């Protein structure tokens, strides 16, 4: 079988890279700078996801279906977000409120007011 003779990546090396990136993402958050935290958390996560998808998921063997799968996942994600966002991104709805959001909004307004005067 030709698949048995396919070239495999060096899994140990990839694992070591993933561990290294994990250390970077944790260390980045400890610096305490918001932008650095965001970059290290999400940026590193993207690189990690790429490494796993590229090397550990045998995507090359099922190349034909991959674009469809990725497209379907993206469409479903957009669909879910567009259906859920009008509710979950608001501080209050028809029959409900989020007290913590409202308190935060009041505090924000007060600080804004104080800053102007």
């Amino acid at each position, binding site marked *: 079988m030709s698949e048995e003779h396919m070239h495999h990546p060096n899994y140990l090396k990839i694992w070591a890279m993933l561990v290294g990136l994990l250390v970077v993402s944790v260390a980045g958050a400890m610096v305490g700078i918001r932008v650095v935290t965001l970059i290290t958390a999400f940026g590193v996560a993207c690189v990690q996801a790429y490494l796993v998808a590229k090397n550990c998921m045998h995507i090359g063997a099922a190349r034909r279906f991959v674009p469809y799968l990725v497209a379907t996942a993206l469409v479903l994600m957009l669909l879910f977000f567009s259906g*859920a966002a009008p509710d979950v991104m608001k501080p209050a709805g028809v029959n409900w409120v*989020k007290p913590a959001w409202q308190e935060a909004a009041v505090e924000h307004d007060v600080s804004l007011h104080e800053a102007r005067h």
Partner: protein
Amino acid sequence: MAETLTAASSHGEHAHGEMSFWSKYVFSTDHKVVGLQYMFTGIFMGLIGGFMAYAFRMQLAFPGVEVPGYGLVSPVDYNALVTNHGTIMIFWVAMPVLVAAFGNYLIPLMVGADDMVFPRLNRLSYQVFLLSAIVLICSFFVEGGGFGGAWTAYPPLSAQSQYNLTPLGSSLWLVAVGLEFVAFLIGGINFITTAMNSRAPGMKAYDIPMIVWMIVVASIMFMASVGPLLAGAVMLFMDQNIGTAFFDPDRGGDPILWQHLFWFFGHPEVYVVLLPATGLVADIITVFSRKKLFAYRTVLYTVFATGVLSFTVWAHHQFVAGIDPRMAHVFTVTTLLISIPIAEMMFVYIATLYGGSITLTTPMLWALAFIAEFLIGGVTGVFLGASGADIYFHDTYFVLAHFHYTFFPIAIIGFYAGISFWFPKMFGKMMNETLGKIHFWGTVIPFNLIFIPLFVLGASGQHRRIYDFSHFPNLSAPWQQDLRILATSALLVMLAFQSVFLVNFVWSLWKGRKAGKNPWKSNTLEWTAESPPPHGNWSELPTVYRGPYEYGVPGRDSDYWPQNEPN
């Protein structure tokens, strides 16, 4: 490749030699054994779920009276019973029996393969499923008892133990549900891959039997929808145990987010279990009306349409939760739209029956009952899909009766249709027809007597989540209590008649008439194998020459034309 592919040459390491009891029945990789393991586990869990229904229905009909075989049902017990009845019947009965048991047993046999593409993964799927069932059963015996926050597990009720009063049970429930989903993800990969890659030579896409198509589409839907809920389950687990606030509005979380996550999976899930049931009904009605399936391709397209649309209807469960009214309009439209392909499918089945040479065997009776009862479930769903009407019906027994008119035909009637049809293939013996018909009528008549009164009670405003209606004067009029007693009595009759099935099952295994290869004179490939099929299914894999529904073809002596018979 020019050489003939044989079972012995193709299925490698899992094909050889005499196997011990353990490797044959407990740690088997044979798709048939895995299928039967799923089926027997599903039946066992069904007995638990049925017993739970008995206990809480007795409390509703005769509040505060000791239930024989259970004892006094406390309010906390009641919550745990209804929660776990719903959970078990959907996740541990409908899913394993309809998708996993029939999928595992039938897909390789119907597509002409010797086994699943990934037999070891298949075994792992069942083992994870069994573990999930054990975790759920264990949750009944921990401190505080089984989870009592309803099978939909809405926070904040599910997230905080001071509300649900079942701190350990609620976490174990989440673990069990998570494991169950993992099991079906693994199983689904196998179903899709086997049906796509392991078909017999000559079997084109439109030659695949409908139940195989349905299980494949159901598996794809499951895989595409379960991710958000698995993520939600982890978030809820963290809310319960390590103090996060994903769903706690007091700390910035959002309980409605859970409802979105749950139903984005939960509504496609209805179709995940519906499709296999409609698939097996298609196969049964063609055999017993000796007619070609009317509009095969139309059925297939309705399945695809249902699959796509099922991802756009989830928020109709949140009309009363207070979703954005603009979105409520959108979801009303999509919900009403999805009734079109399903209705079309039912019409196609009726058209298949029209003019057929119908034989009312036990499997055919179940298949016909599926169509009739499911149609009632579908029609009553229209009231609930429209946001205006749903405001009034929400959380009443009308909803409960509606979904039992969908899930009971799917999970119970569908199972009985399938098992009575494929029992000869699975075990090599015929089931007793008289006992089968007694069981049929003893199930279907009481089923209607349970749930028609609940439609009436729901329309009169009876709320779903009440432990003792005598505390509510508006809901405890004598006629209302009489209807509750009628429904409970009918449930007792229906449960009693299930013993007829169990007796028939065991008696037929032991003393049943020998079945032969093809007792129903059916076309599909599983009926060309021995009954029961040996490990590897065939000594030489079959070749396919035509579609699965060539019954009553003019000009032929025989009224059926097996898929593997050369022209």
